[in-house]
């Protein structure tokens, strides 16, 4: 029983850390949406008009998903959206690298502007792994509950 409580506690901490990362990233970008629009534009995937609109929306999506993870309300929805965001970002980052673009990821606003490509990639993969682990854990729990 104590072992189970410990495991549950560890999962809760993982969820809180992931939520904290996204809330922080969202808040930093929400404070400077124009800069974030430039960062999105740098990937040369979307037209500026779309980049600037996304710059006003994505930070809030990250913040709300992070809050959902902490509050454990709309939890699976939050995990799904964040996983999708990280996957899209990973593909965009790799594509930019392949095309030789000199990009600033903008993930954490000004704080991340000097991170190396491998640094970005490593952090994203760790976050993606944590999100997937949380997602599979909660969906398997839900399946078990439904079976009972």
């Amino acid at each position: 029983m104590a072992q189970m409580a410990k495991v549950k506690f560890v999962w809760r901490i993982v969820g809180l850390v992931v939520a904290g990362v996204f809330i922080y990233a969202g808040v930093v970008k929400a404070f400077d949406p124009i800069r974030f629009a430039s960062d999105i534009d740098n990937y040369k995937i979307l037209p500026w008009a779309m980049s600037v609109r996304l710059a006003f929306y994505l930070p809030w999506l990250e913040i709300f998903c992070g809050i959902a993870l902490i509050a454990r309300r709309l939890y699976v929805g939050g995990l799904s959206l964040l996983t999708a965001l990280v996957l899209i970002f990973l593909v965009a980052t790799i594509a930019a690298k392949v095309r030789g673009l000199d990009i600033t990821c903008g993930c954490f606003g000004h704080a991340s502007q000097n991170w190396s490509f491998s640094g970005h990639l490593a952090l994203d993969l760790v976050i993606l792994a944590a999100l997937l682990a949380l997602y599979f854990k909660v969906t398997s729990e839900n399946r078990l509950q439904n079976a009972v």
Partner: protein
Amino acid sequence: MRQALVLAALALLPGIGQAIYFRDKVSWQSPIPASEMVTVAQARAWDGNAIWVDARPDAEFERDHVPDAVPLNEDRWNELLPQFLATWSPEKRVVVYCSSQSCNASREVARRLREEAQLKNVFVLQGGWEEWLKWRK
């Protein structure tokens, strides 16, 4: 799926609110208005009437830079800005460049020079350092 849609819809509300707040502060159709961009040919034509500002990291500036360019990057903004201002005069145009067309630093430095240092006649070099190198050959 329903949960994701609810979250996506919730995030729209502050996003729209913020976009309305910023509606006059952001250029919605182009990252830099054409009037704030300058080509290498135009900037070279200004000759002694322009100050070149290198927004790249220090290491890249030290490796090579436009003759007489002044380093001004965001890493050492507070330290370098006074040095830049010492060379600036109101009649001179400021041409900011970074490494290439896709880099962001020149836009940011130009924006901060306009907003924080209240300078006018600040331009971003199209194509950046890469474009300059083509002209130098």
